[in-house]
């Protein structure tokens, strides 16, 4: 997995001052959050549903090998093929082999985060195959040559007028002065352009939200219907997905889908829920002639045996991202990973490496809102802290931090020394604060004072000193 998270701090600096991004993120907060809140409030048994969803995934993960093998059996029985891929390279190779076997030149793609994870588009292009994104958001960022900045709304960082600019630049077939102000105009134009591609594609690639072991079906949910056209029209359908998505039964899938739509967009169900089971049968009116599932591991089986196991319950609903105040301040690109936000900061170090992503688990206030809204009750703050512990143990934390903690720790267990230190600090800060009662600059605290003032303690010394004096006075009065 390719990540650029080492540049996190630099990315952040650009992000927090980008006015377009700020606008987009403000809309996200009001939209996604309010819709989820409404949907949850309307379902009294939502908490019980969360417990049920969690139990389903915990059970599936505890017997992952069993359910994956059942799934494979059923896919094969339905006439499809399953390809096991240890990492992104193997997954890309499996897809390319299938494309080559069918002499594919153009492939349409439904939205798939696993495809983004393995950088499938780059692999296809390098092999001379043209990938065409059919989800509107994915299509927009493909035109703009960007990565998704959100796992369910990949172009959330792009403003409407920027979309219009991209369309004018790329869709030369239309009159230059056509109106593109309204979202409807943009949607209609994208439809026209994409319709041709649907018909000319040799292979359709989709992801999967869930895999069902008992039937060998894969499920996708979309709101645009593009996924259906992607998988029904071409001769070959390839599902690119990952191993933790399997659930035992159709019934289980229904439970998870109820949680997914509500947590993601506040819908009761997504507009389209599509199940695929093998290639077209003789009496089917339509469907692909060939059906392949590429099952990616890419670090997930390693997570299974670690303290990050719970993160494999993730159904990629993005609720944690939508409610994350850090994501809300910097957007998705700054993370440098296709998975941003709290869940991204937990799984990116696992899927890539901690060295490449060490900044991410630290970039959280551990405010806990992600865990509070996660339908799968994934303890994201706990896992962010776990990564910090790994980082500390492997000496990846800066020496300044390590030494600071060492000195602090020595004093914090020696009350007399600690009192002396806090007394001196209090007096120094009070003196520097002066009559304004605050500091605009403070020694060793410039990271604080760069963005805000540092309130100074009021005169009179620390609480412990004052309290002791007060006690002494009380006693001597007696």
């Amino acid at each position, binding site marked *: 997995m390719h990540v650029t998270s080492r540049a996190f701090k630099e990315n952040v600096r650009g992000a927090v001052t980008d006015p377009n991004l700020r606008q987009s993120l403000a809309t996200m907060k009001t939209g996604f959050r309010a819709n989820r809140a409404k949907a949850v409030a309307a379902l009294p048994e939502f908490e019980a549903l969360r417990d049920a969803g969690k139990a389903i995934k915990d059970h599936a993960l505890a017997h992952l090998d069993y359910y994956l093998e059942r799934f494979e059996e059923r896919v094969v029985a339905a006439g499809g093929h399953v390809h096991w891929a240890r990492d992104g390279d193997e997954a890309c190779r499996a897809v390319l082999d299938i494309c080559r076997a069918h002499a594919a030149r153009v492939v349409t793609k439904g939205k798939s985060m696993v495809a983004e994870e393995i950088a499938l588009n780059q692999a296809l292009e390098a092999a001379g195959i043209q990938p065409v994104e059919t989800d509107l958001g994915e299509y927009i960022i493909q035109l703009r040559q960007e990565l998704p900045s959100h796992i369910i709304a990949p172009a959330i960082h792009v403003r409407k007028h920027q979309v219009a600019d991209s369309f004018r630049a790329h869709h030369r077939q239309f009159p230059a002065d056509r109106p593109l102000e309204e979202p409807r105009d943009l949607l209609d134009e994208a439809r026209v352009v994409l319709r041709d591609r649907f018909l000319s594609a040799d292979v359709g690639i989709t992801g999967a939200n869930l895999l069902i072991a008992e039937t060998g079906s894969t499920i996708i949910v979309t709101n645009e219907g593009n996924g259906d056209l992607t998988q029904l029209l071409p001769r070959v359908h390839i599902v690119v997905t990952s191993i933790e998505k399997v659930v035992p039964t159709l019934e289980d899938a229904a439970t998870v889908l109820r949680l997914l739509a509500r947590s993601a967009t506040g819908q009761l169900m997504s507009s389209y829920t599509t199940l695929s089971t093998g290639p077209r049968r003789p009496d089917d009116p339509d469907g692909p002639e060939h059906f392949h599932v590429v099952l990616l591991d890419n670090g997930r089986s390693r997570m299974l045996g670690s303290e990050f196991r719970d993160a494999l319950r993730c159904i990629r609903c993005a609720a944690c991202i939508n409610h994350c105040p850090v994501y809300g301040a910097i957007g998705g690109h700054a993370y440098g990973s296709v998975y941003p936000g709290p869940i991204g900061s937990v799984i990116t170090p696992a899927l890539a490496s901690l060295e490449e992503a060490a900044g991410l688990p630290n970039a959280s206030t551990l405010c806990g809102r992600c865990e509070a809204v996660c339908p799968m009750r994934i303890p994201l703050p706990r896992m962010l802290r776990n990564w910090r512990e790994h980082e500390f143990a492997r000496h990846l934390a800066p020496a300044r931090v390590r030494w600071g903690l060492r000195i602090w*720790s020595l004093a914090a267990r020696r*009350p007399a020394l600690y009192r002396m230190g806090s007394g001196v600090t209090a007096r120094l800060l009070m003196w520097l604060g*002066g*009559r*304004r009662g605050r500091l605009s600059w403070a020694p060793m605290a410039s990271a604080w004072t760069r963005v*805000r003032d540092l*309130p100074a*303690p009021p005169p009179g010394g620390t609480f412990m000193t004052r*309290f*002791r004096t007060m006690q002494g006075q009380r006693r001597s009065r007696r």
Partner: protein
Amino acid sequence: MTDSKPVEPAAATTTASAAGPRVALLVTCLVDLFRPPVGFAALRLLEQAGCAVTVPEAQTCCGQPAFNSGDRATATRQARFMVEALAAEAVDYVVAPSGSCAEMIRAHYPALLANDRAMAGRARVLADKTHELTSFLVDVLGWTGIAARLEATATYHDTCSGLRGLGVREQPRRLLGQVEGLSVRELSAPEECCGFGGTFCVKYPDISGRMVGDKADDVVASGADLVLGGDMGCLLNIAGMLKRRGSAVQARHVAEVLAGMAEETPAIGEGPKSAPG
């Protein structure tokens, strides 16, 4: 509880004695250093509520700086130290004017010390007895004796650990409702993190600055002249931003207002000169 022996509070100093519950005050390192009046406000409230309050002398800091930096060994050592220092066996409750420190003890000390035969039981005793101040007054004591007055319009910022870790939300509002002359106006996003996050605010000042900037906007937009909260870290952050922008909105710990002490000390980040009037 096999390994826990009742321990005398070796060097605890005691305030006026009362027949009510025995409470040890966990001052918290930020109150000790940056805002001593909050400690005295907590003392007054607890005594008004009929508690016999002690202030264990050896207490320092709950250890969050180490715990949240991934230094588990140091955090564990600090937890062990604080279990000794607070000697919860000798009191009925331990109360802190902070959701964050109370949550550290309640939610994390037992896990940090689970494998320490001598301390595991004592850590659990301490965790069970530890409460955030407003939730202690309301949920544990059911106390309604607020005797304070303040002519002001206040707004309330829910601090994250208190809110999501301990369920502190209605308690401070209920108590504020008893303060004569005070009206409370809600923020548009009272539950949004202010961007303090312990060491986060200095590790990522750009992100933290954006977050506390949004919080300051929300505070100003509420039309309140006073913003209250239950954790000094958040309040230093919010006050620091309001003052950097030259805003006249004051920031105070909720305990100062509840104890009727708001007029005794300039607001957070204000000196005698910048105090209004």
